[in-house]
């Protein structure tokens, strides 16, 4: 079955799964959790069809550790879950960072903390961008706003993972996973010149044995050296910033939002412009690395900055750091699963220009 080059109507979860297959993902392990169940369901038949391995794992921990194992063999591997499940996967993500193993983790966020609810949410921004697992590591995090963009950035995620030997997260949400949109699957071609995988474990035939590990306690300097080496890598990863602006150049009110809220805010900005209000949008696609310089420049020019998120205010901290003018910055959030509508955001914009 080849879906490339045809316009099809598909939900976000299935589109992400198919995009992974197109990007050469040949191993998927997952565990059922709403609202991302279409990903393992789709992979259960599609992955074998593509000649890859699908495993319904016994737990989220097992799933991420299976990705760890598949990645060791050089296979492009992915797992997916939603917020509570992603908390469980943090162990494996930290080990992958420590072992420098590539892999893609999809988080179709839902409400929290705890079991929360199953509605779309953006409450895992801190967890995704500031660590999540233990240890001093960084991981690229991509936050698509539409289904076509999710497809594009599943592919970006696999490339970044192989480029830097790192776990990469696609930070999406239940809304994007459940909604349907028309998409055209592109032909996959890596935009990067990817390094050869000369570290994989496939049997020490005609070469020296290899080992992949993250325990570095033989002497105190080994871990420090390892972490400095990783730090060099993180510095390079910081150049992989992706963002979008919309009518931001002359914006007096700069709205900052990502993922599903990014596109809804675009609707609010259209409403504002129609009434002559100069509103514009800054939308990070990579939420780590963060386009701090861009937002700093735009934020300094704007009179007001409005950050919109489906949480109590998380990305707003990165915006504050970049804009360096707290008085300018307002926050509008929905922390319980309800989605802020463009009408509500537009009302908030109007309030700010009064």
């Amino acid at each position, binding site marked *: 079955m080849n879906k490339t080059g045809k316009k099809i109507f598909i939900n976000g979860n299935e589109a992400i799964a198919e995009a992974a297959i197109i990007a050469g993902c040949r191993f998927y392990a997952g565990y059922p959790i709403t609202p991302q169940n279409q990903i393992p369901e789709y992979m259960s038949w599609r992955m074998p069809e593509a000649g890859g391995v699908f495993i319904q794992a016994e737990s989220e921990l097992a799933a991420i550790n299976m990705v760890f194992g598949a990645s060791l063999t050089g296979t492009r591997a992915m797992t997916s879950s939603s917020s509570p499940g992603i908390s469980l996967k943090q162990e494996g993500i930290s080990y992958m960072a420590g072992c420098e193993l590539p892999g893609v983790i999809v988080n179709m966020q839902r409400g929290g903390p705890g079991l929360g609810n199953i509605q779309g949410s953006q409450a895992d921004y801190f967890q995704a961008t500031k660590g999540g697992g233990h240890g001093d590591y960084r991981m690229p995090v991509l936050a698509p706003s539409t289904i076509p963009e999710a497809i594009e950035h599943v592919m970006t995620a696999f490339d970044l993972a192989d480029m830097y030997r790192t776990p990469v997260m696609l930070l999406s949400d239940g809304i994007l996973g459940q909604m*349907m*949109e028309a998409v055209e699957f592109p032909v996959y071609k890596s935009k990067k010149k990817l390094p050869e995988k000369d570290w994989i474990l496939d049997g020490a035939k005609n070469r020296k044995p290899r080992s992949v590990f993250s325990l570095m306690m033989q002497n105190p300097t080994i871990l420090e050296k390892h972490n400095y080496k990783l730090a060099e890598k993180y510095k390079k990863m910081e150049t992989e910033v992706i963002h979008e602006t919309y009518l931001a150049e002359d914006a007096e009110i700069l709205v900052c939002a990502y993922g599903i809220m990014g596109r809804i805010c675009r609707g609010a900005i259209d409403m504002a412009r129609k009434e002559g209000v100069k509103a514009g949008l800054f939308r990070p696609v990579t939420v780590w690395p963060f386009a701090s310089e861009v937002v700093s420049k735009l934020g300094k020019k704007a009179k007001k900055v409005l950050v919109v998120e489906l949480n109590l205010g998380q990305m707003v901290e990165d915006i504050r750091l970049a804009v360096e003018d707290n008085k300018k910055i307002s926050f509008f959030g929905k922390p319980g699963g309800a989605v802020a509508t463009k009408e509500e955001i537009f009302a908030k914009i109007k309030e700010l220009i009064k």
Partner: protein
Amino acid sequence: MENNVIICGSGGQGILLAGTVLCRAGLLEDKFVTWLPSYGAEKRGGLSYCAVVISDKPIASPVIGRPEVIIALDNIGFDNYENVLADKGLVILNSSLIKREVKRKDAVVLGIEITEIARELGNARIANMLAIGVYAGISKSVKLESIIAAMEGVASEKYKELVAVNKKAIEKGYELGKKEK
């Protein structure tokens, strides 16, 4: 031109399917479409709704805060969405199942015995197709042929024998909707 509609009722009424057929019809006309469903733990019963946007331009928000049109197939759906209807918005109301008075005095209400007519056509379960037929007839957001083609496209082998009756429902709905303009 952007059309938005919320279709609401109870699980089992084919609410979600009706929304996808509308979107697929839009797609056949090369329009931009988004479909956003409710999703919950239960598969039958309970509130079911979907938000459909059909537009000539890329769609910013798949979430509809103030729908221009609500298709309400039963009380559960209507009770939940009556409040958010846009000012002077349209309600396509299934008067077979919704007997109460409409609270929103500004609303344009088109009451149709959707379930009853569907039953007369041969199957109460095609009420969903009849309803989107009405919507297309009145809103002109998609063409009649597109809805029929979209419906035929999603009917699986198992349901092929139901295509004819669904087509009748869509046509009947369209005719009822068109009359209202």
